[in-house]
């Protein structure tokens, strides 16, 4: 899309009925690094790619625990994501305190969507520049939702957001029909494989991704590096000789990262 005379304010409609500022906010989500979610009848897995600003820094946290039964993965402006995660935690704990019962995910997601909608209808605000994959459990089973800066939300069997997420979506589209009946282990494996698709060539290592699980009888938690590596090892062999090749690859990956990398030319520092 190109600059036009209707895109300065979020409260200005275009003649074709579009709110360009909202659409630009959705672009910000596409610039962030990938986040993936998938669910079966009883479990939800959220995974993300660990991107660091530079070799010197640690990577940004993109997956947050909202409650024992709800987790969220974000892509886009991480600061906006952090603020919204705090809101979700607050709503969840307030509900738990009053009713001693977990907040149904569907209701949390609607509140989040309503909050995002407000920012699309006030001249003194701007839309949140972050997409949220909310995974959670309630009375009716496991759920995965995607909350958009526009204030829309959708329920998914599996979804991917962020840069190069199309590759992951293609992978998930081939497999999603079986997810409902998947075992917990298969679901995790599919999540990591989907992450691999977004890396496009880079060797998949456990240090490159974060994986979290929640399910019936299993509160939200992150998988440790060892467990992730074990799953990776089942489908990707990294023999000793490749260490040199691996290092060279890492250097090659680091250099483009400084320049911005393919497709990441315009990544602003605040987006991850």
């Amino acid at each position, binding site marked *: 899309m190109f600059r036009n005379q209707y895109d300065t304010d979020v409260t200005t409609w275009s003649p074709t009925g579009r709110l360009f500022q909202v659409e630009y906010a959705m672009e910000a989500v596409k610039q962030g690094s990938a986040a993936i979610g998938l669910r079966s009848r009883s479990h939800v897995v959220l995974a993300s790619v660990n991107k660091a600003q530079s070799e010197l820094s640690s990577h940004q946290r993109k997956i947050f625990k909202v409650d024992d039964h709800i987790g969220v993965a974000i892509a886009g402006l991480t600061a906006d994501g952090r603020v919204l995660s705090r809101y979700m935690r607050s709503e969840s704990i307030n509900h738990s*305190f009053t*009713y001693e019962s977990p907040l149904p995910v569907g209701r949390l997601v609607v509140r989040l969507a309503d909050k995002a909608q407000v920012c699309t209808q006030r001249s003194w605000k701007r839309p949140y520049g972050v997409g949220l994959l909310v995974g959670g459990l*309630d009375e009716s089973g496991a759920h995965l939702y995607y909350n958009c800066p526009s204030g829309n939300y959708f329920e998914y069997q599996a979804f991917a957001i962020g840069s190069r997420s199309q590759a992951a979506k293609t992978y998930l589209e081939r497999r999603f029909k079986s997810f409902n009946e998947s075992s917990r282990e298969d679901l995790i494996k599919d999540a990591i494989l989907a992450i691999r698709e977004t890396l496009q060539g880079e060797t998949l290592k456990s240090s490159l991704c974060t994986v979290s699980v929640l399910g019936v009888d299993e509160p939200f938690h992150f998988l440790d590096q060892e467990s992730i590596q074990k799953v990776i090892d089942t489908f990707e062999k990294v023999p000793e000789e490749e260490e040199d090749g691996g290092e060279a690859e890492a250097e090659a990956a680091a250099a483009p990262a400084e320049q911005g990398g393919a497709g990441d030319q315009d990544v602003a520092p605040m987006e991850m």
Partner: protein
Amino acid sequence: MTFTIPIDNGDALKNAEADSQRTLYPYVTGTSIVAIKYKDGVLMASDMGGSYGSTLRYKNIERVKAIGKHSLLGASGEISDFQEILRYLDELVLNDNMWDDGNSLGPKEVHNYLTRVMYNRRNKFNPLWNTLVLGGVKNGESYLGMVSMIGVSFEDNHVATGFGNHLARPILRDEWRADLSFEDGVKLLEKCMRVLLYRDRSAINKLQIAKITEEGVTVSQPYSLKTFWEFQAFHNPTAGAQGSW
């Protein structure tokens, strides 16, 4: 026609005139509620009396009401406060239904909500003058709990309020079992209610028993218990009293 304009007397604790705007004593009160868990759910018994001090003024007050699909609420204490609580719960259940999303408030959630309400009112020195009994069944699990006017809240297999605490609970402690059938449960409750009828001055002989199971709520029609007054000691009651004390 005179209209009253609401007066704001400020802090209900510090200002003497503000006393007229917070609960100091109850006026129309209901007496005990007795409730037990049984095989299929929960049974709750209450009489239909509303006392105005020592006058048995109202004889057709329903003190047990259904809340949503899964709960029963019984109240003793100030009747107007009970009606206020029913209005709060009405709003709660309405909002819950409006979500229309397959989730519904169970007895545990209602009990905890009421605990929060009662405790917060107590903290403002403006209590809802009730002891509430909340029973229900959801997803096959029975629930029975109680909240007092100062926010004391707990769950148990059998509960009683007011005089029931002193007269009914000892009976329940001896005779309650987890696998009571409906008939045995009703017999047990009637035993408790009969003792209360004999010994509680604010009790009347017109009671209702409400049942809640997975299928839903049933509140019985009002009925009376058979009583026996022909004890030997009641004949010629002054026979033993010689002289003054």
